[in-house]
């Protein structure tokens, strides 16, 4: 699929510049209040700044340089978190700008009634309301989302989809929907507008990628609660440390109580700032990854739900199999030699431009070395397929070569005074049993043999299904075929289950049954008759090429109209959750090292023996505290790429995934800060900052 989209580099200079500015504008307390963890740091920064200024004016026991040093790094912590969020948003904004460029205000040819010949008036596209009718002709921009009610045209949708090849849009059927901002290349169409200004697909898309209407997703809210609870616990831990410290000073008879600066530093180090600072960036980046995959999710909730999907309903045609059946085998009747059958089959198909017909020619060439011939050069007469005869073929050299469904060909043969031998019947039945479609080739009164037309399962799809099974996702193939054919293809493709002779009602019922069993169902669809099922499914991906009704019913739109995209969508959903989980674990595990840095330092004057806990051998109490705070701030920056890219997902089953992530982010989270804090301490001492 030729797509002009390419992955945006992680640190795009213009985005970077804008993010730096945004990091400061996000210091607005109202925005900070939305995130309890970072708001705590924000308050701590203000508090220590005040203390620092106070110490400058009236010097106390604690040096102003130390207080202001801590304060500066607390501000950096807040700014780094803002920066992470701004980076994630920036990528979306850049995308939105590209989209917005296509939403220029255009002149629309409004029609008085939905007919090509109706009276037209020129109006601005922004004045168009739902149910207005417009005419769009070659070269015109389609002014708003709508449904084609008359005409057929080729449309360039690259502005939305990145797909450069034009697509056909016509009234009726499943290709009737058009999107505002796309351009008609040839012919004309009459469009009934389906969205009011500001509510078009393009508007919604811009809103989504900008993150303007971003609501917290259910899992994000639950995690927020946990993080807030941890913040409160650490707030209590630090607040009660002051009386504990006062008591200890009195009991030991030496030293001075812990200062507010150190308490704030300890608090900020302990509360989960790493995940707290990156949480919203992770969410925005998840949406962004969907957009990079050319999928527009209508809500963050849908992205998250994608990670939970247990059942995937996949249409057979186009998803599991190639769009068309192909000839794979010639089976001659008794007494007919194979090359003769191949030759006749090829002749019968030479002028047949259907994909099936072409595949017969290809098979004859590949397998029997029969080069393609031109019907006219041969002087043959092409007999096209008609609804009456249900046969096609050629009259050539006095021969009447025909191919078609067994029943039709049998009639033809009988009509020419011949009859089907029993072996032809046997071959026909055998092919049908294996899920193929038999085409019989006859020459006048004689049946020559059978062509086996088969659904071709797409390369690599079986492996994807194995992967999905390892992820714990069940795949169900939906097809209009009879159960026999469906079973054969299902076995070949390796899906777990199939729904044969599927009707929209049967599909809907199947989804409801799975949901009643506690499963989350994902499906793709494009036709209007898919809409009820799409509306019922938990994750419903509508094809952009599909009807307006389908797009309304789904909660995602795939701009590439590629049904296999579901698999990618599931992975993105999982990545989103994994990134949150991994960084939460990392953040909490970090605290152990910070205790070893700060506790001995904080009570160095009261209980010098506690210096035994200074396992990192940090130089001085103030260098220890400063190092911990600096590490805490820098780790946010260091993890921005991970937050934006997401923790990689591999289909290895939950248990292994947990083990690997626990080793990397849990054990890693325990160990890394010991080295990080020590390194910063050494640097501080070498640079003579402390």
């Amino acid at each position, binding site marked *: 699929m030729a797509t002009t989209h390419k992955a945006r580099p992680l640190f795009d200079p213009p985005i970077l510049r804008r993010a730096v500015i945004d990091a400061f504008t996000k210091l607005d307390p109202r925005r900070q209040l939305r995130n309890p963890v970072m708001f705590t740091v924000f308050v701590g920064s203000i508090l220590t700044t005040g203390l620092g200024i106070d110490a400058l004016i009236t010097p106390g026991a604690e040096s102003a340089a130390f207080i202001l040093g801590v304060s500066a790094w607390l501000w950096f912590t807040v700014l780094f978190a803002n920066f992470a969020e701004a980076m994630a948003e920036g990528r979306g904004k850049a995308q939105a700008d590209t989209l917005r460029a296509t939403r220029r205000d255009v002149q629309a040819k409004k029609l008085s009634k939905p007919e090509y010949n109706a009276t037209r008036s020129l109006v601005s596209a922004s004045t168009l309301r739902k149910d207005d009718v417009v005419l769009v002709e070659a070269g015109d921009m389609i002014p708003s989302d709508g449904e084609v009610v008359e005409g057929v045209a080729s449309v360039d949708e690259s502005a939305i989809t990145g797909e450069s090849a034009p697509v056909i849009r016509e009234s009726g059927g499943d290709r009737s929907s058009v999107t505002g901002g796309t351009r008609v290349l040839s012919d004309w169409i009459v469009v009934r507008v389906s969205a009011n200004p500001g509510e078009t697909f393009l508007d919604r898309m811009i809103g989504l990628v900008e993150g303007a209407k971003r609501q917290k997703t*259910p899992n994000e809210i*639950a*995690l927020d*609660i*946990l993080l807030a*609870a941890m913040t*409160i*616990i*650490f707030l*209590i*831990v630090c*607040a009660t*440390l002051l*009386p504990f*410290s*006062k*008591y*200890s000073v*009195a*009991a*030991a008879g030496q030293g001075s109580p812990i200062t507010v600066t150190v308490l704030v530093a*300890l608090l900020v180090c302990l509360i989960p700032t790493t995940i707290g600072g990156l949480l919203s960036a992770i969410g925005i980046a998840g949406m962004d990854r969907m957009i990079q995959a050319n999928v527009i999710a209508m809500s963050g909730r849908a992205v998250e739900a994608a*990670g*939970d999907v*247990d059942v995937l309903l996949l249409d057979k045609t186009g998803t599991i199999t190639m769009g068309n059946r192909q000839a794979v085998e010639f089976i001659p009747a008794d007494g007919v030699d194979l090359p003769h059958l191949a030759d006749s089959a090829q002749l019968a198909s030479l002028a047949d431009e259907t994909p099936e017909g072409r595949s017969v020619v290809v098979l004859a060439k590949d397998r029997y070395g029969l080069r393609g011939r031109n019907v006219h050069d041969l002087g043959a007469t092409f007999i096209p397929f008609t609804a009456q005869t249900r046969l096609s073929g050629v009259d050539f050299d006095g021969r009447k070569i025909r191919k078609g469904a067994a029943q039709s060909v049998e009639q033809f043969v009988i009509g020419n005074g011949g009859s089907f031998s029993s072996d032809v019947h046997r071959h026909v039945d055998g092919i049908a049993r294996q899920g193929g479609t038999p085409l019989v080739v006859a020459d006048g009164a004689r049946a020559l043999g059978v062509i086996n037309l088969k659904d071709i399962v797409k390369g690599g799809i079986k492996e994807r299904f194995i992967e999905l099974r*390892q*992820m*714990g*996702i069940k795949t169900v193939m939906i097809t209009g075929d009879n159960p026999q054919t469906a079973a054969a293809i299902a076995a070949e493709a390796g899906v777990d289950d199939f729904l044969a002779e599927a009707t929209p009602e049967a599909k809907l019922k199947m989804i409801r049954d799975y949901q009643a069993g*506690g*499963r989350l169902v994902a499906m793709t669809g494009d036709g209007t008759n898919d809409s009820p099922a799409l509306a019922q499914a938990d994750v419903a991906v509508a094809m952009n090429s599909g009807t307006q009704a389908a797009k309304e019913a789904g909660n995602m739109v795939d701009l590439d109209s590629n049904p296999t995209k579901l698999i990618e969508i599931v992975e993105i*959903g*999982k990545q989103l*959750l*994994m990134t949150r*989980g*991994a960084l*939460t*674990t990392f953040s*909490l*595990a970090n*605290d152990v090292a910070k*205790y070893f840095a700060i*506790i001995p330092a904080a*009570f160095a004057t009261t*209980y010098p*023996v*506690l210096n035994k*806990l200074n396992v990192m051998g940090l130089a001085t109490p103030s260098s220890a505290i400063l190092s911990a705070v600096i590490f805490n701030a820098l780790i946010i920056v260091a993890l921005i790429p991970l937050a934006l890219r997401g923790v990689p*997902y591999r289909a290895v*089953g*939950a*248990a292994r*995934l*947990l*083990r690997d*992530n*626990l080793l990397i*982010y*849990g054990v890693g989270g325990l160990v890394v800060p010991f080295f990080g804090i020590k390194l910063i301490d050494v640097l501080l001492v070498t640079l003579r900052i402390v």
Partner: protein
Amino acid sequence: MTSNAWMQLILYFAVLGLLAKPLGWYMARVYLGQPCCGMERVFGWLERSIYRVANIDERHEMGWRQYAVAVLLFNAVGFFAVYALLRLQGMLPLNPQQFAACTPDLAFNTAASFATNTNWQSYAGETTLSYLSQMLGLTVQNFVSAASGMAVLVALIRGLTRRTTATIGNFWFDLVRSTLYILLPLSIVVALLLVSQGVIQNFRPYATVNVLQPTVASDGTKGETQTLALGPAASQIAIKQLGTNGGGFFNVNSAHPFENPTPISNFVELLSILLIAAALCYTFGVMVGDTRQGWALLAAMYVIIVPLTVFTAWQEQNGVPAYTALSVDQTAHVDQPGGNMEGKETRFGIVNSALWASATTAASNGSVNAMHDSFTPLGGLVPMWLIQLGEIVFGGVGSGLYGMLMFVIVAVFIAGLMVGRTPEYLGKKIEAYEMKMASLVILIPPLVVLVGTAIAVIGPGLDYAAGNEIKSNLNNPGAHGFSEVLYAFSSAGNNNGSAFAGLTTNEPFNNLALGLAMLAARYWLMIPTLAIAGSLARKKFTPPSAGTLPTHRPLFVAMVVGTILLVGALTFVPALALGPIVEHLQMIAAS
């Protein structure tokens, strides 16, 4: 440590593990309303007549709110009954020593203590309470407070197993069956075993006996006689151990020779502390239809308690460096247990004292057979930390496992995110509401413990440290004094009930503060727990798939253990650093 020490440790944990399955299986039958091995032929009539007399329809299903109201009201009645009994004890029968009424603050503290299954004892049993108060007040509460905890656990399990329903069972059914079919029969067996070992059971007035070796007081007066406190001890001790109550009949609790005379009585009592809590893990497994889930929780508990017990025993056996400097022989050999024997009974020695200390604090039992205050700093840190973990490693009967399940929910949540799915436990999705309630459960005990300790040390404690000893309740200066206060509030704020002692608590401030801490820790946690039960019961069941995080494998056990230890450590490390850790470092530095 000696090979004998290892043998005793292994024997204890092995027997405990072996008994978990049969008892757990039996308890599951009790709660599922199935035949209980003929026990209903003995107590069935009593169960039915209780329902009839109290006009209870035991088949009536309750929603979580109704269930919570029933628990709270029932506990409130118990609380006021004990309070009244203690205030009126002087006028009531079965009071051979003519003890007067308790003060209001002591009565409040004691009523709160026994209603909440804490059994913190601000009083000394043999010098304060009549036999009637002990039996009708305290022993009854020992049964029903334990049964209340078990009932709430069963309600939570029902929440996990039921699908799309609003109800979580009937509190009265759970309460009555817990008491009649589980606690009562077990108590009778244990009481008889204890009596066989010489634990007393009588209603006689205290006896005065001549001592073999007269004592001489500092003012020169000779002590020729001694008063021996008596009473119905065995019956109360059995349930105090089984129901993780821990309130001793005598002040020194199970260090008293009439409460715990022999190594065998010691083993029986020790086993009783963790028996039901361990078996409930298996009951949980049976009730959720997958015993592996129960074993996983029991494994998590073992993984925490066994190393900590060994560590305590090792610390105590190591003894004190100051003695080593004085060339005192602290090694264990045939003639002496060696190590730090201060505050320990010679008939129990180092290992059984250490084992008891960790078992009684791991469970929210709180009975003691040695004085934790006299343990080495790190040996004493372990019991304190086990309490601070939230009384969930075994914990109180019922309450321990439901507390554990809250940590499991948090662990499942983080682990679930890490495998890329909305977290689910036993097929139930863990969402914002469950996180809110589980967070409350995890948040409240540290809040109570740390804030309580802070108020105590800047009030009376700071006065003491400043030299104003008159106002002080602390009997030890310095870091150890801090440890004592921290221990007291940890114990009350987690419904344990054991004491570091060394802290005078029978005075209005401590009685009131600790009483409130106990009430908050018990009921503030029960309500969110029941709320989760209700919310889970309403949810659909998600069948497991390869993408579901398995919650019975060693990896998940490690995850749960890690969550518990990390939260416990992160919350209490600064406080512990200023108490036992400083003490330890000072002790080493001094030698």
